[in-house]
């Protein structure tokens, strides 16, 4: 197996009141793979994701990024090393598309020309026309906004990408488009991706491996092909919930 970029070792996360959100998580993310964290709401998948870029802190256990404990990273440096895209996108409404995508490069003092080139390159990469560069977020459609969000996460070319249900708020057709484009993109870029979703179809479509979380615990971790045939009762339950379409057709 290839080198682990992110390593969870007995990682726990507790709230101030002592409630455990994440219990003894052990997990490796290998370079270049898309690891999907699958689970229902409240399973701890988003928490696990935010521990990686230190938006939340590990209560106990060890979490390493590129072989270094996250606690020994400067949080700002760590985050610039990791792209971050979320369902609500969170584009800066007062910035144009260009400044949104180019913000981290500009903070890192890239020369103006290089930023412009990078922004145009990224727009092309996520399938947006270059004339969109001077528009504001409110002038974009939901799908365009999420594409800009992904482009922004890739801004300074981070080797790691964290994605929290990035396509969750889109209509099914747009979502399918973006999922396909994401796969094409990933084949080209080979980033190390941690992808959070509750959608089994999305997990099966995008994931190299799928980790199922439930109530803060890792239930199972399978390569994509092994997931459906897993004999774990919780996995089977999850799969069952998603095969409900036949059941609806049966009602007619």
């Amino acid at each position, binding site marked *: 197996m290839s080198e682990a970029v992110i390593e969870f070792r007995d990682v726990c996360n507790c709230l101030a009141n002592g409630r455990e959100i994440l219990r003894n998580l052990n997990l490796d993310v290998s370079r270049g793979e898309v690891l999907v964290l699958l689970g229902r709401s409240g399973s701890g998948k988003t928490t696990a994701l935010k521990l990686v870029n230190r938006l939340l802190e590990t209560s106990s256990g060890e979490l390493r990024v590129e072989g270094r404990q996250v606690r020994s990273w400067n949080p700002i440096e760590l985050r610039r090393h990791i792209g*971050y895209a979320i369902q609500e996108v969170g584009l*800066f409404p007062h910035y144009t598309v260009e400044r949104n995508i180019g913000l981290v490069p500009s903070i890192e003092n890239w020369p103006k020309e290089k930023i412009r080139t990078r922004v145009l390159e990224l727009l092309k990469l996520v399938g947006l026309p270059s004339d969109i560069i001077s528009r504001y977020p*409110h002038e974009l459609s939901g799908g365009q906004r999420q594409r800009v969000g992904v482009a922004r996460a890739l801004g300074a070319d981070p080797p790691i990408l964290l994605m929290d249900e990035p396509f969750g708020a889109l209509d099914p057709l747009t979502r399918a488009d973006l999922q396909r484009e994401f796969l094409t993109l990933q084949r080209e870029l080979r980033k190390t991706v941690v992808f959070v979703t509750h959608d089994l179809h999305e997990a099966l479509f995008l994931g190299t491996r799928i980790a199922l979380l439930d109530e803060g615990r890792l239930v199972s971790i399978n390569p994509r092909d092994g997931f459906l045939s897993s004999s774990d009762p919780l996995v089977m339950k999850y799969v069952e919930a998603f095969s409900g379409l036949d059941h609806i057709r049966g009602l007619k």
Partner: protein
Amino acid sequence: MNFWNFVSQNRLEIADLALEHLWLVGISTLLAVAIGIPLGILITRRPALHKPVIATANIIQTIPSLALFGFLLPAPWIGDRAGRLAILALMLYSLLPLIRNTYTGIRNVDPAVVETARGMGLTDSQLLFKVELPLAASVILAGVRVALVISIGLATIAAAIGAGGLGELIFRGLAMVNNSVILAGAVPAALMALIADTILGWLEKRFAPQRSN
């Protein structure tokens, strides 16, 4: 003597008093901005301070203005000059809308925007100056607008302690039971408030962020 006659015969004095009025309001508002906005930012960073700071500003706001001028009279240095005292009192009254609006403006920035900004590796000061303050600007300006309009009105009372301003004419008119003299102070003050309100309202709109839905 009717209003227009009085105004035209005393236009130089009225202009002087209006300038004095503007001076009191301008300096006190600038001081309030310089203190209130940082305080508002501080209480978004230190939530434990939110209640005591807002409560203090609230209490100040409830003190009747004439009483506040009186309270401050014995203060050293401040009490020596009526102008200083008036500026301090007006500044104190302006604090609440500035602190509150700065706090509210920053807290109302879309949490998703703040989260991604932090997730992208913005430092706390980059987050504040590049994201939070620009997005809160119109709400903060609304606070300046309220503070300014209140100050222009309140500054008329400063004449009671001899700080000058358009209130001088109002008090003189009251003593003389002469409506024209009262109006010569009140009308310019009202106009000043209207103009300030219009200008700030326009600025507020200019800085309003386009909302993405």
